[in-house]
């Protein structure tokens, strides 16, 4: 059954409003994109929407009680909740270095979660 899904493209600040005509995951028409990146985004968004995720994890003996972390690659949207739950369980020792792997191969998806900054020990 053909349906039209409205999306806003987020590849660049322009934010083009896009209409995607599709049957299930098969796209039959895209209208409203301003560029090729937009088309790619829309295709991916419909079939496998992904997002960069940033959050924090607990630190012991650090300058602050939390260190900010982020996914090195965009995560599938439906799994964000699961990732956040995993991160909530983690507690690491200071000192922490920028780029240090906090959670390797998160959720078995081949994406690492790394520290965003140094966190010195106090």
């Amino acid at each position: 059954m053909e349906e039209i899904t409205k999306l806003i493209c987020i590849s660049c600040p322009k934010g083009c409003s896009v209409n995607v005509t599709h049957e299930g995951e098969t796209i039959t028409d895209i209208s409203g994109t301003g560029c090729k990146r937009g088309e790619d985004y829309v295709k991916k968004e419909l079939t496998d929407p992904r997002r960069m995720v940033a959050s924090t994890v607990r630190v012991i003996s650090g300058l602050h009680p939390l260190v900010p972390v982020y996914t090195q690659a965009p995560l599938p949207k439906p799994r964000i909740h699961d990732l956040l739950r995993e991160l909530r369980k983690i507690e690491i020792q200071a000192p922490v270095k920028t780029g240090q792997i906090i959670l390797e191969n998160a959720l078995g998806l081949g994406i690492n979660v790394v520290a965003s900054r140094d966190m010195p020990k106090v």
Partner: protein
Amino acid sequence: MEDAVQEKYDAIIIGGGVVGCMVARWLSRYEMKVLLIEKCSDIGTATSSANTAIVHAGYDPLPGTLKARMNVEGNKMWDQLAGELNFAFERRGDYVVATTDEEFETVKTLMKQGEDNGVPGMILLSGEEVKSREPEITPNVTGALWASTGGICDPFAVTVAAAENAVMNGVKVMLDTAFEDFVMEGKRIVGVKTNKGTFGCRWAINSAGLYSDEVMHKAGVRPEFVIKPRVGEYFVLDRAEITINNVLFPTPTSKGKGILVTTTVHGNTIIGPNSVLKDDKELKAVTREGLNEIWDGALKLVPCLADKRRCVIAVFAGNRPLGNAPCKNPAVKYNSDFIIEIPEEVQGFVNLGGIESPGLTSAPAIAEEVVKLLKEAGEPMQEKADWNPIRIPRIHFRDLERRDQEKLVEKDPRYGRVICRCENVTEGDIIAEIHAPIPATNYDAIKRRTWCGTGRCQGGFDMPRVVAILAKEMGVSPLEISKKGDESKFLQRPTKVTEG
């Protein structure tokens, strides 16, 4: 079944506003064991800290009323009081400004009324004279009453200073302690029941402000007396953007003193109040209509404010207790006078009620009157040999010259850490208040004492830091720290802990 009496006092003062604290300070002079109970987490949180901060000259109250007598007597006491208790007080003088010929006639009547009340130092000014003293005054000015004995203060600082002096002279203060009922033996009050226990007393003194009606009813006194809260809203303007150096009243109407534009001891200009009767004694809310009303009122006096709305840095509202007690003198037709009495129908009770404007000005005179009433009732009132009227003020980093700031930081490095950037309040200042004779244990208490969080950013920068300092000094988790008492905590849970 009677609750066990925890401790016995000579006098228990119910309510820690400026009147209660002044009474405490006056009683501390005598060999009396005194307890002051306050239901909130800090003293002076209700009417006493949300008003126009004016020490009135005394031309406004009707001659023959208790308000008039207390106002004029109280006004005279402020210089000595400010010197002894070390709080900021400026006898600025005030103007009652007329903008029409009719208003000027009213102003003349006001001056006559002031003379009847015994107010010294008043003159009438022409429109030109007013303009020369206050360049920003409306060009419509037709003249003004100039009352040289009018003054400005920080009403909360006054309350704290009085309370601290009382504590240093032996008065006990219990915060978070709410009056519930009296313990009576026949017609005599012998104790006060609170949420923290029952305490014995020979005298109970009602200084409960907005709740003074409910307290006196528990003693069976004046069942017809009712307090209605009158809300007044205010604007505070950025002192870097605008300075009005005078205290400007409009010509009063039947509604009251009107909307002022006035300077404060902190250098900010404030505008307000309006006057709206409400039902809820606790609700202190600003309203769109109210704020517009006071802004428009201010423009009538100072039209140049018209494009200064962006200079507003704070708004607040205060409740004042409007009572319905008729003046004791039947010849005077006035139905909202002060109640200052030892009633006949009950023993052991000093009853103060309906203390709205000029309550702040009158507070020291009311305290003296309470002492007088106690003496007349046969209380021995033996003076203490070692009573110390002087309260040594705490240093504030922001008030010092650079050289003295440097010395202070060297002596105590905590004064080197600025917590409130807009008002230059340091960690040392804040910690001093947490450990003061009346300890400041929440954010608003710190704010009232140090002026922290009252500047341009309204706490945006300092709030997390003040919370952290309070937590550390009080030895609790930041989750326990509140804005103004247990029901107003800032934080809910640690970030990584969830319910589900």
